Structure formats: structure tokens, C-alpha cells
């Protein structure tokens, strides 16, 4: 019966080397002042204290949460609306077209997508501003103003990712038992009532998965912000991941960056736990 170990060995070794050990080392690093040529000095909680007392931290923390909240809400809501709209009989050609149109952005690297969008968003020669001007709306400083930068990133993120949630939710909607729906229709239940009393409870576990999955991704957002704004203007779009990469590979503050990444991990954990607890109220078992 020991054959099992042989089969799991390659994956376990690689997993230990590239996931488990690094996570453990990061946690240890976070308690040190690490210099690449001299090694580590134990400094206890100093890095954590530094993050918590740094005035920038509050904005960076807030940006991370704000982006995650906006991106998750819009991605899942728009994905659900699209899924509901698409979950009806229609010609196959249309179905293929919609799959292509809504899912193509999902499979393209955010790095590529962001390069294209940075031109869309450019103030003077951007396509978006050109058409806004045609509509009589003035120029919008999409990425160069701290007022709009975060919104611009969220808009691109929803364009990029909502198709993913749409596909998953379509699959969930197809599992809603048709006889129950038909019976409710016969009894004269309004579309909203059918949605809130039948569809929503039925797809709630999948919807919950979408929210958790989207949150974990959004809390770690990196490439879209990096390419569109690099965290600026000022710190207005700097998220934890951008900040930690700056600290690690810009200033080579590896111990401090490790502490920031541990804080990020704890944040992801806490949010996931809150969502799991909250889900007991609305997710049907």
C-alpha cells in the first residue's frame, strides 16, 4: 500500500520547496532586518510596528480594501446579470459570440490588457476621452488624477474578469430545477419573486464561491495597478502588493517586505473567515 507515496512524492517535494518552505521562511524573515550581503538580524516585531506606524500604511491598506470591495462587487454583480441574461434559449451563433466576447478578456494576461487600456485612458490621445468629448463631456484625467485613478483600474478589472464569474454562474443557473421554476410561473410568481425565492437560494453556494474567489484575487491585485499607474498618483492606487514589491525589489528592505506580505496573508485569511461566517446567513446548505 506504500505505492501511494511514490505517486505523491514529486508533487510533495516541489510543493514543500516552492510553497511550504517559502511561507515559513517569509514568516521568519518578517522578524528580521535582512541584508542581502550580511544576512539577517533578529528584530522581533519591529517591521510590523514600522508598518503600523507608517503614515502611508493607512492609505495603502485602505486602497487594498477599497479596490477589493469595488472589484468584487462589480465583477460578481455584472457577471450575475450577464449570466441571467444569457441563460435563455438563443441561436448557437449568438451563444458562441457571447462566450467569445465576454470570456476573451479573462484569458488574456492582465499585463497585456493594462498596456492597451493605458492608451484608452490617456488624456489627450485616448479613445475614451475623444468620444466623451464628442458627447460634450470634458476630458477626464483617468489615470493622472488621484480622484479617478482607482475607478479607472476597477473599470478595467471588471471588463477583464467579469466573464469568469459569468461562466461559472451560467453553469450554476443551468442547475436550477426547471419544474420548480415552471410551477412558480404557473402560480403567478413575478420574475423578481422567482429570482429571489428560487434562483438565488439555489445558486447561493456558487455565488459564495465567486465572492470568496474574487476577493482573494482582488486583495492580491498587482499587474493591473503596476502597469496602469504604478501605485500613483501619490499613493492613491498603491495596494499592499505594489508596496511590498517596491520595498523588496526597489529598496531591498526584505525583512520589512516580508512583514508586509505576512500582513497581506493575514488580511486575506481574515476576510475569507468573515465571509465564511457571514455566508451562514445566506448560503443554502
Amino acid at each position: 500500500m506504500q505505492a501511494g507515496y511514490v505517486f505523491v512524492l514529486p508533487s510533495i517535494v516541489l510543493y514543500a520547496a516552492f510553497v511550504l518552505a517559502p511561507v515559513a521562511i517569509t514568516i521568519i524573515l518578517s522578524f528580521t532586518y535582512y541584508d542581502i550581503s550580511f544576512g539577517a538580524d533578529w528584530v522581533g516585531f519591529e517591521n510590523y510596528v514600522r508598518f503600523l506606524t507608517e503614515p502611508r500604511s493607512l492609505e495603502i491598506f485602505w486602497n487594498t480594501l477599497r479596490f477589493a470591495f469595488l472589484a468584487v462587487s462589480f465583477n460578481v454583480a455584472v457577471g450575475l446579470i450577464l449570466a441571467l441574461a444569457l441563460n435563455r434559449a438563443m441561436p448557437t451563433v449568438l451563444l458562441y459570440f457571447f462566450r467569445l466576447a465576454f470570456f476573451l478578456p479573462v484569458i488574456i494576461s492582465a499585463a497585456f490588457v493594462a498596456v492597451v487600456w493605458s492608451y484608452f485612458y490617456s488624456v489627450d490621445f485616448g479613445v475614451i476621452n475623444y468620444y466623451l468629448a464628442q458627447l460634450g463631456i470634458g476630458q477626464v484625467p483617468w489615470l493622472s488624477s488621484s480622484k479617478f485613478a482607482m475607478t479607472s483600474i476597477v473599470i478595467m478589472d471588471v471588463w477583464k474578469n467579469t466573464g469568469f464569474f459569468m461562466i461559472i454562474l451560467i453553469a450554476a443557473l443551468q442547475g436550477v430545477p426547471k419544474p420548480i421554476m415552471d410551477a412558480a410561473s404557473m402560480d403567478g410568481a413575478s420574475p423578481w419573486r422567482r429570482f429571489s425565492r428560487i434562483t438565488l437560494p439555489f445558486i447561493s453556494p456558487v455565488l459564495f464561491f465567486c465572492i470568496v474567489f474574487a476577493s482573494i484575487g482582488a486583495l492580491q491585485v498587482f499587474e493591473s495597478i503596476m502597469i496602469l499607474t504604478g501605485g500613483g498618483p501619490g499613493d492613491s492606487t498603491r495596494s499592499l502588493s505594489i508596496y511590498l514589491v517596491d520595498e523588496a525589489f526597489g529598496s531591498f528592505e526584505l525583512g520589512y517586505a516580508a512583514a508586509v506580505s505576512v500582513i497581506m496573508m493575514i488580511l486575506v485569511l481574515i476576510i475569507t473567515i468573515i465571509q465564511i461566517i457571514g455566508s451562514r446567513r445566506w448560503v443554502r446548505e
Partner: protein
Amino acid sequence: MQTRSMQTREAKKWVDRAIIAVLLLMGILMLMPFFWLFSMSFRPAAEAYKMPPSFFPPSFDVSNYQTVLASSVPFLKIYWNSLYVAVLVTIGQLVTCTLAAFAYARLRFPGRDSLFFVMLIGLMFPAQVTILPIYLGYAKLGLLNNPLGLVLMGLTSSFGVFMLRQFLRSQPKELEEAALMDGAGYFKIFWRISLPQLMPALGALAIITFTGAWNAYFQPRALITSQDSMTLPIAMDLLRGYMSQGNLSVVMAAMSMAILPVVLLFLVAQKMVIEGVTFSGIRA
């Protein structure tokens, strides 16, 4: 009575049409960036900033593509790096994840469930938490600025193991049990019975893995700085820096080439991609 129900049916038909019209409009809007990207890549440099933007290029000018290939950025080398990393990572994951998934789904051995649980925890760690030690380790081993480093760290994934295990568990066991009775070894059972059953799931995993490796940005950016070792997503950042002032069309030509494999993969295996994604979502 009769007319009333006909009226509601008529109304319903119009609602359906309206919804499809709105969806079509949105679909076209969703595709606009891609259209714009391709159209821009065939435009002479001078046309790139022309307002109002013309939808179609005035002529199909391939000189932007030639410029990319002839530029000081070693585009072909970078393209090769991306292919090399994505192909090897995909093969690696198919092998390691299939073996492990088979053991977790079909074999019994002490500690199996705890091992699987530890593996699953891996889904929770952000890439940001593992990158610093990998960076330090690679610096010691001379694997920084080496695409091989990107391959090594991608050779297995919790997601792959989890997905394939779920798939295997949903398959009937009878054949394997019969083979076991007949004295077949575990490897034979794996090779002859489980692997063929896994084929559709492996296809989906291969596409997801290839696309993921092709698109990866965070780790390559942290581990690679030299142009000769770059992969496409980070190179795109670089190209943009070099060329954006003068020539937007050239960046778009490079981008078109960079997204081509993934777009083709999607067009060819649309069904598989979508099933793979749905599968990973629904049964997680």
C-alpha cells in the same frame, strides 16, 4: 383570454429581443479593445494618434511587425522564453498533478488525507508570500534571470492536484477494482485505466496551466531583469517604455503577437476552456 395570452407572449418576445440587443452591444464593446489593438497594429505610426480614430487601418501595413522583430528588444528570444516556460510548466504539472491526484483519489496509505489537506492549504497563500525566499534561494543557486527558474517553481500546483482528484473521484471504480483482482500493479492501473478516464480533465488543465504560465507577470517580474531571459508580459512593459513616445502601432503589433497563442488556443478549444473553468468553480 386568447388575445391576452397572445399579447403577453408577444411582449415576452420583445423583451427577449431587447435583452439580446443589449447583450450584443455589450459584447461588441467588450471586443473593442481587441479590435482596436489589431487594427492599430497595422496602422502607420503617423496614423496612430489621429483623431477621430478610424476603425479600420487605411491599409494593411505589416511594417510594425517588422519593426518589432528588428528592434533592440530581443523579441524572438523573449517569445521563445515564454513558449519554453509555458510548455515545460504545462508538461510538468500534467505529470506531477496526475500522479498525485491518482494516489489521493484511488490509493490508501497512512497520512493520505493529511497530506492532501496540507496540499490544499497551498491554494490560500498569495504569491507575494512565497516570492521573497524563492528570490533569495534563486540568487544563491544562480537561477535569477533564468527562465528555468520559472519552470521549476511551476512544475506542480495545488489547483491541478485538486481538480484532477475531484474528477477521478467522480469516475466509477469498478474497472480498477477488477484489474486489481487480476493482479495488475498500481502503475499499470494508473496507466491503463485511470489515465484514459482523465483525458478530458487533462485537456482542460493543460489549457488553464499553459494560459496561466503564458500570462504570468508577478513572479517573472520579481525574478527576471535581463532582457534575454524575459517572458512576454514583462517585456511588454519594457517595449512600451521604449516605443510609446514615438510609435504606438509598434507596441500594438508586439502585443498582437503576444496574445496570439492564447487567443488561438481559446478559439480552438473554447468548449474545453469553459468546461475547465466551470469545473474548477463549481466543485471547488
